[in-house]
Structures are given as C-alpha cells and as structure tokens.
C-alpha cells in the first residue's frame, strides 16, 4: 500500500505532471466560476486536448480540473447568487447574503478553505475505503435509490424559506420539469409537444442558469444603478480565513464525511451531498436562525461536502469502473482514449493511475487553495463592479454558456423561459431551491420507483424488504414531518398568545 502511494508521488518528479496539475486547477477554477460551464462540460471540452498526452498526465490534469471546478461553482454563487453548479446552490444560500452585507471575501475565504480541507481529508478516506465502500454501494438498488431521492427532497422541504406550501408548489414545478422527455421505461415522448428537441429532457445547466443567474439579472435591472454595499477585504491578510476556518472545524469535518459517503453512491453526487450536510449542520448549529441569512457555517458545510463528494465519486470509478457522477462518466471516456478501460482490475493492472490520482488530489489541495486565496482579492473587486455592468456580463455569459453546452439554440431558449419563470416566482416569494433540486432528483425518483415495481412484478411491499431502504424512508418521513410539527407548534403558541 505504502509503496503504491510512493509510486503515486513519484510521478510528480515529471514536470509535465506539475504543469497538468496547475493548468487543470486554473482551468477548473475558471470553469466553475463561469455560470454555465460546470465540471462535466469542462472535462468534456478539454478531452480533445489530452490526446497527445501521456494517460497519467492527462488524468491528473482532468481530475485537478474536476476538483477545482466543483469549488469554483461557489464563486459565482457567492458573488452574484448564480451558482455555477447544482452543488453550489446551498453555498449561495448563505454566501450571497454575506456578499450583500459586504462580507464577500469572508465567504470566499471560508469556501476555498472548506473545499481544500474537504478534498484533503476525503482523499485519505478514498485511499483507505475505495474498494470496500464501493462494494457496499452496489447494494443500492432501485428501492434504495428511490428512498435516497425522497430523503433529498424532504430535506429541501425542511430548508426552504417561507411557507411550506409554497415550497411544495415549487417542488411540484421541478418534478414536472423532470418528467419532460422520452419516458425511460417505455420510450413514449412526454410533454414534448412532438418536438424532438425535448426528447432528451430539459438540460439541467440552462435551467439552473435561467432560474438563478438570469432572474438575478432581471432583479438587478429592477434595482437600477443605485449604490450597493461596498465589499471590504478581510483584514489580517492571508491568515484571516484560516482563523475563521479553525472555528468551523467540527462543521467541516462532519460535512466532509457526509459528502464522501454520499459521493460514493453512484448517481447521488455532489448536489445531494451538499444539501444533506447543510441540513445536518443547521440542525446541529447553535444559531440555526442565521442559516440562509449569512451563516459562514452554511458556506463551510456545503463546500466541504460538495468537494469531498469528488473523492467519493472517484471511489466506484477506480475500484469498479462504475462512474459515481456525470463528470466521472466523462473521465472514463478520457481513459478509454488511451486504451485504458477502468474496471475491477485497474488497481492491479494500472496501479499508477489510481495512486497518481490520490497523490495529485493531495498535492492539488495547496495549489488550489493558493489560487483561491489569491483570487479572493480579484473576486472581491468583481463584487464591486457597478450593477449595470454586472447585469450585462452575467446575461452575456449565460447566453454563450447555454449555447456551448449543446452547440445549439435549444438550451438558450430553455434558459430564457426559466429566467422569466424564476423572476416571477421570486416576486411571488416562491423558493427556487426546491425547483432545481426536484428536477435533479425527480428522474432518479421516478425511474427507480418504477424499476423497483417492475423487478418486483408490481409487488408494492418491495419497498419494505430491504433494511437500508426502510431506514432511508424513515429519515425522509421524519424530515418531511419535522417542519410540519414546527409550524403546528408556532401556530399553537400564537393562538395561546392571542388568548392571554
């Protein structure tokens, strides 16, 4: 084991590996920060460039890009409330309020360090547990996936601001959007109006762009050029964010563990990881009322979770050849190009690949953190760009980003429609997070529900035969009920107060 890890580090004697690492981290950072270019599109766009390269060099660059992009998504979420990835939605919940209070550099500092710690620790978990945990994740069948999706949905119901009924409506909209396209089981087109463009369903990236970034542009236009709060840099130089993170170590450690475990389950991924750890942190926080209004704990838990989910998603890829996320699925393509087929034999046949990945994740952390911390000064300036210019820049990048995601106008129109819908929903005080999360989870929920019924020949008791499923269903039920109980309690309190 140790000699293999040393083998991984020995690859770093080659300056090419370093070049790939730094280049990948820089590109990923940029890709994540630009709304519309997520990690999976970023890796896909860079694959052509890895052709002439050695497989180890290219995989190091791509993994560095993946990790850095997962962090970069937080930047646009914090600064302009337009999370670059679905996994950064929870980061924006607290990050953007912090920016509005003039504390953007604080939020960014915490998010980069939480991300760095998340990757660093989860890589250690990855080395120790990749094989056994991946084998365990195979036990996730249709019923488990259905229950997991339900847990995810129940958490958003509990987290979203304002009236739970409005949250339910928003969730319904997200679920309905997820059903558009060809039905996975029967192949029947649903809600497509006969247009082939809708067959593959609504693409997530343009929906995310529209709901968040474009609706934010419209809000900025509402606000006009009037002054906004100037963002001040954190005093105390480079050491300041470290002191802040020192206070958050429990939150970060817990979120890293959650993020890694959720990341290992194929198909669950970084967004569910960040939502779950955000919810858990809120539950354990001494000041839960600050969540959603600018709690650094919220930023820290979401970011450490979505980055440790990167290591998590790599576990089934390296141990079994089964991708844990959309981005790792693209990484398989990158390895295929070099004639390497990831599978159960990867560790014995090409040990240099997994162990160099481990080493590069570790070595990549300081590189990524350094880039991130140096970037804070720059980004804090972005937060101070006059509102009209920001609106124009965000709108322009949204258009090009949406177009680039499929090389066609279809995602651009999807983004536009979602932008206007997002603006209207925000004006009526409907929460947006349930829309996007329900869309992410809706297909997973429906497909696995039906798959479970089909494999069990229509026997509904299948959902109660696996202990894992039952546990998850109970968690989901509790999470759905708790906010309801809280509402009843506050109602009865209000009634009592009215009586006295």
């Amino acid at each position: 084991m140790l000699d293999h890890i040393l083998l991984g580090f020995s690859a770093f004697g080659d300056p090419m590996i370093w070049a790939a690492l730094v280049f990948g981290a820089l590109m990923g950072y940029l890709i994540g920060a630009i709304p519309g270019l997520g990690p999976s599109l970023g890796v896909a766009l860079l694959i052509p460039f890895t052709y002439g390269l050695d497989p180890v060099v290219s995989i190091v660059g791509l993994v560095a890009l993946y990790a850095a992009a997962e962090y970069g998504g937080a930047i646009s979420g914090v600064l302009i409330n337009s999370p670059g990835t679905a996994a950064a939605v929870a980061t924006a919940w607290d990050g953007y309020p912090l920016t509005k209070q003039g504390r953007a550099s604080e939020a960014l500092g915490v998010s980069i360090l939480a991300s760095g710690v998340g990757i660093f620790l989860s890589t250690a978990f990855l080395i120790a547990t990749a094989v056994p945990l991946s084998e365990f994740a195979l036990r996730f069948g249709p019923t488990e996936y259905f229950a997991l999706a339900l847990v995810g949905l129940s958490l958003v119901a509990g987290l979203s601001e304002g009236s739970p009924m409005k949250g339910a409506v928003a969730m319904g909209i997200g679920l309905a959007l997820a059903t558009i396209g060809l039905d996975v089981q029967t192949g029947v087109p649903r809600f497509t109006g006969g247009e082939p463009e809708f067959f593959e369903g609504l693409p997530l990236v343009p929906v995310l762009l529209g709901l968040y970034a474009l609706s934010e542009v419209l809000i900025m236009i509402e606000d006009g050029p009037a002054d906004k709060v100037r963002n001040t840099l954190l005093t105390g130089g480079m050491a300041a964010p470290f002191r802040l993170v020192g206070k958050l170590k429990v939150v970060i450690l817990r979120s890293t563990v959650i993020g890694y475990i959720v990341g290992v389950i194929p198909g669950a991924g970084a967004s569910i990881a960040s939502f779950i750890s955000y919810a858990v942190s809120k539950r354990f926080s001494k000041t839960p009322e600050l969540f959603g209004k600018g709690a650094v704990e919220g930023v820290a838990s979401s970011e450490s979770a979505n980055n440790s989910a990167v290591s998590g998603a790599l576990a089934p890829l390296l141990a079994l050849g089964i991708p844990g996320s959309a981005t790792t699925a693209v990484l398989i393509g990158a390895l295929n190009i070099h004639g390497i087929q990831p599978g159960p034999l990867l560790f014995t046949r090409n040990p240099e690949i997994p162990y160099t990945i481990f080493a590069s994740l570790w070595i990549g952390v300081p590189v990524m953190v350094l880039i991130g911390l140096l970037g804070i000064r720059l980004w804090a300036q972005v937060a101070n760009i006059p509102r009209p210019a920001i609106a124009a820049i965000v709108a322009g990048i949204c258009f090009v980003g949406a177009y680039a995601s499929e090389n066609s106008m279809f995602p651009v129109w999807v983004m536009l429609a979602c932008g206007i819908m997002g603006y209207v929903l925000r004006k009526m005080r409907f929460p947006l997070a349930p829309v996007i999360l329900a869309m992410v989870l809706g297909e997973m929920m429906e497909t696995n529900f039906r798959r479970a019924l089909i494999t069990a020949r229509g026997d509904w008791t299948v959902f109660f035969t696996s202990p894992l499923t039952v546990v998850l269903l109970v968690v989901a039920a509790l999470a759905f009920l708790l906010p309801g109980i809280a509402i009843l309690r506050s109602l009865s309190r209000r009634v009592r107060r009215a009586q006295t």
Partner: protein
Amino acid sequence: MKFDTLRRSILAGAAMAAFLHVAPVAHAQETGWQPAGPVTFALHTRPGGGTDVFVRTLAQSLEPMIGQPVVINNLPGGGGAVQMANVRAAAPDGLTLGVNTVTHFTGMLTNLQGVFAPDDFAWIALSQVDPILFFAEINSDLNSMTDLVERARANEGQVNIGGFGPVGSMQNIAMEMLEGETGVTFNWVAFESTPDIIAAVLGGHVDVGVANLGPALSFFEAGRLKGLGVLGDERLDTLPEMQTWAEQGYDVDTSWLQVRGVFGPADMDPALQQQIADAIHQAMQAEAYQQYARASGVLDSDFGPQEYTEFVDGLMTLAEEQLQAAGLLGN
C-alpha cells in the same frame, strides 16, 4: 522513446501554455479522397462517450492521410434529431459527415418517424460492429442461455433482464427476438447506461444484464461476471468459452448488431462516397486505432457505400418487423 517524450512535451506545452489547438501535420499520403477543406463529423453524443472516442481516435490517423483537419461537432439532443438535421441540411460535398448507431434506425421507426428516413442520407461506410451479449453475476445459478430460457419458462417470465434503453431499443429488440424464437417471456428493466446495468447485476438487483463487450470486458477478466451467450455468428476472440446463441439452439438473426457507421447527406456522388469509405477503412488500420479498437472489444467492418446501404435496408426491415410485433409502431 526519447522522440516520443519530446513530442509529448511539445504538444502538451502548446496546449497548456498558449491554449493552442494542436494543428495537424499536413503531409498527405496517397488517398483518393482530397477534401477541399476541414471535414466536420457531426455526432449525436456529448464529448467523452463511446462514439466520441471512436471518431477522435479515427481522426488522429485520418487527418494526416487527407491533409485536412477533422473537426468534431458534438450535437446531442433529440435522440439524434439535432445531428441528423444538421447532416441532412449540409451540402453533399463530403465535408460534413455524421456517425450513426442502431439507435438512428430504431428512432426513424418510432419517435422520429416521418421526421427522418434512411433515404434522407447516404450510408457511406460501416466501421465497427459490436455484438451484444447476455451476462450474469459470477455466482448466479444461470450459466447459459438455456438456463435463462428454462428459468423463464418455469417461472412464467419472472426473470429480470436489465438492458440499455426503453422498450423498443436495440437491446430490447434482441430480447424480444429471443422471446419470439423460444416462446417464453422475460421482464425488461430499462437502464440509461451500461455501467448502471453492470452495477445492478453485480448488486443482484436484476438477474441478467445486456451489454456490448467493451464496457463489460474487465468485469469478465476480473471474474465478477460470466457470459451466457453472444448474439453473433462466431464466438468472441476475447471470451472464447462463451457460446453463441445459435450454438445453444436459439436461431436469432445475427445481423442484429450494434454498429458505428459513417453517413452523409443524400445525393452524394457515389465515387466520392467510395473514396471516403476507403479513406476511413485505411485510417482504421493505423496502430493507434487498432489498439483502441481491440481494447474496447469492437470488431472492424470494411463495408463500403453499397454494402452498408444494403445492410441498412436489412436492419430497417428487421427492426420494423420486431417493433411491429411488439406493438410499438404507430400505424
């Protein structure tokens, strides 16, 4: 070796430092095909998928041969509709080509019926054929296609088969052809990717999985999966102990294969088509391509325009019969 490292560093350095596209070295070998400009391959998948890897590998050896860069245009969406519309609208000058799989044909018969038809295109060359196989977890009671059929017969169809795509997809049709041959029924469970199918078989969530060899190969070698039978004329070189369906007594049409072929807009000059086909088949002989193709388990095909068009006709007839039988055709 030394030269190789040097070349690598130069290429990488160029890509890294200046974000430059690696320009193809243009010293043309003799081929009949002399395109006047860059050749664009329109794909129906995103970068990084199987079809994408195929074209990018092919492009490496094709570029120096034709002395022109090959541009890859990923046009996902609409189950191939976006890509087919792009190719159909292009001029038939050989500068815009598309890559197709069997999904294109089943699509033309179902969801895209009336939107696209085989006559809208010129079917230029068949490059890869990829037989499908049924497999089970290594400790499963099922050891052969016969076991599978007998279990289904004994349990009134209560055997779960996990495969790629909904009812009416390429792999589902193969299962239905087996049903037609044996008179038993199976229970189709649709998945959206081959790794998902393998994971479901390994985890015991379905009894049998369907896949092409490539993505499943390493699981066979690791002793995690076992093959029940391959739908082909001959056994696979890499898994010689797995019998074909026919050897086990199931006479199902073996031309029902996954394919990757090259097509273009209709009305393309037949002589040009032949030149393109020759160039592609020649490029497939390159060492890098051969290494990739063997690693991914696909078989090479040398069908030119005439053979490929006939092959497409046969495939369409077969697919139509099967979809008709399954009640999936609109009329």
